[in-house]
């Protein structure tokens, strides 16, 4: 039996015509998803913890950040970073950089809300016990609060990562050659629309599914670390606003 290369040009008909391009786009989509999620998760942790601070000013900064980036659309932020900011600051990001930054800043704001909620949902007794054991604030966070909060963070983070994957399609608007861009190019150059769009949607769906599988594994590990069974639940639906 011969193995079939799903990205090969020798596939029959429209498949062979489209798949090499779609695969190239899919790689860019994956790269932007990965880059965006690294920035988003880093921001979510920092800003999310800031939002639980006792200091009013620190909380205020975190709140302002979250409201600002959740208050406008990603497309506007993306356009602003790529086309408007260079005029104002004289610093031009390349298109993939601007795209990944916009994704990270935007989804990071939603993620901060998830981190804040999860940290505050850890029962106060845990914190008090850590104080009673003379843990330093760092130890308290690192060994008692975060491991427990982490378990609660994973399911909504799963939704956010899928949201991030879907949002990478907007990068095609600033001519990043991702999956959506390649697909549209194929359609404009006369490939069978139905086939190309169906292939695109299926690839996006497979990536979403991959994220869900990965996050289920992470959730199981995180639950075992704090001595719990992996909770049996379906992927909850709401992503955009419902992540809180």
């Amino acid at each position, binding site marked *: 039996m011969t193995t079939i290369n799903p990205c090969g040009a020798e596939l029959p008909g429209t498949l062979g015509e489209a798949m090499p391009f779609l695969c190239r786009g899919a790689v860019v989509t994956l790269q932007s998803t990965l880059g965006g999620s690294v920035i988003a998760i880093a921001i979510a942790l920092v800003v999310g913890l800031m939002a639980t601070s006792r200091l009013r000013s620190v909380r205020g900064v975190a709140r302002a950040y979250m409201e600002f980036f*959740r208050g*406008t659309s990603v497309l*506007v932020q993306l356009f602003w970073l790529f*086309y408007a900011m260079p005029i*104002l600051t004289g610093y031009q990001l390349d298109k993939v950089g601007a795209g990944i930054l916009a994704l990270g800043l935007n989804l990071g704001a939603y993620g901060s809300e998830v981190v804040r909620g999860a940290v505050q949902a850890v029962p106060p007794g845990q914190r008090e016990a850590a104080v009673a054991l003379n843990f330093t604030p760092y130890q308290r966070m690192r060994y008692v609060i975060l491991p427990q909060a982490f378990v609660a963070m994973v399911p909504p983070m799963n939704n956010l990562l899928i949201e991030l994957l879907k949002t990478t399609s907007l990068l095609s608007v600033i001519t990043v050659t991702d999956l*959506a861009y390649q697909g*549209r190019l194929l359609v404009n150059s006369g490939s069978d*629309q139905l086939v190309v769009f169906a292939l695109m949607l299926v690839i996006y769906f497979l990536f*979403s599914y991959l994220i869900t599988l990965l996050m289920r594994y992470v959730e199981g590990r995180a639950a075992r670390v704090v001595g719990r069974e992996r909770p049996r639940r379906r992927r909850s639906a709401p992503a*955009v606003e419902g992540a809180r």
Partner: protein
Amino acid sequence: MIWDWDWTLEILPDLLTQGLLVTVQATLGGAVLAFVLGLFLALLRRSRRAYISRPVGAVTEFIRSTPLLVQLFVVYYVLPDFGVSMTALTTGIIGLGVHYACYTAEVYRAGIDGVPKGQWEAAVALNLPRHWTWLSVVLPQAVRRSLPALGNYLVAIFKESPQLSVITVVDVMGLARELGSERFRYLEPVTIAGLFFLLIAIPASILIRRMERRLDH
């Protein structure tokens, strides 16, 4: 001065009348479609017949897992091939509405699941016909519970509506892009568009949070 005030004042009225009108139409149209279709999807998803509930569940899951932008392309490019011709705005409203219906379906489902069991039992005890149980007992309570989440989705639809500019709808963002491309200078129009979304979305989400708190008590 980097910021061009003269140009700002020149384009501001257009953005706030022409652009705003289209954005509001897209948002409200999309939201109405999402809220109505979502309820039907939620009911179908709960059907006891597996050949109805399974496919509906699979399709909503699929639509939620794939980008709105690509779905908009599908509606925009493919439907005309089947002899359906619509304006770009209508196409966009359908795209937004169907995409978000798959999210609101999940909201309604949670709302229906949240109606206490006793309500169903009371309806049975009163010998209420099945459709009246739904219409006068379950749905009013379920929809009330769903309101804050639906409000969040209204804001989400509003914020996603600029994506319609990609399929040539001239909403606030579409107009901003058009104006920007005329001079190849995007700073002013895109900043105005961004501020416009902030000024509406932030008060709206504060309002929804208040509604949430009131319904909780």
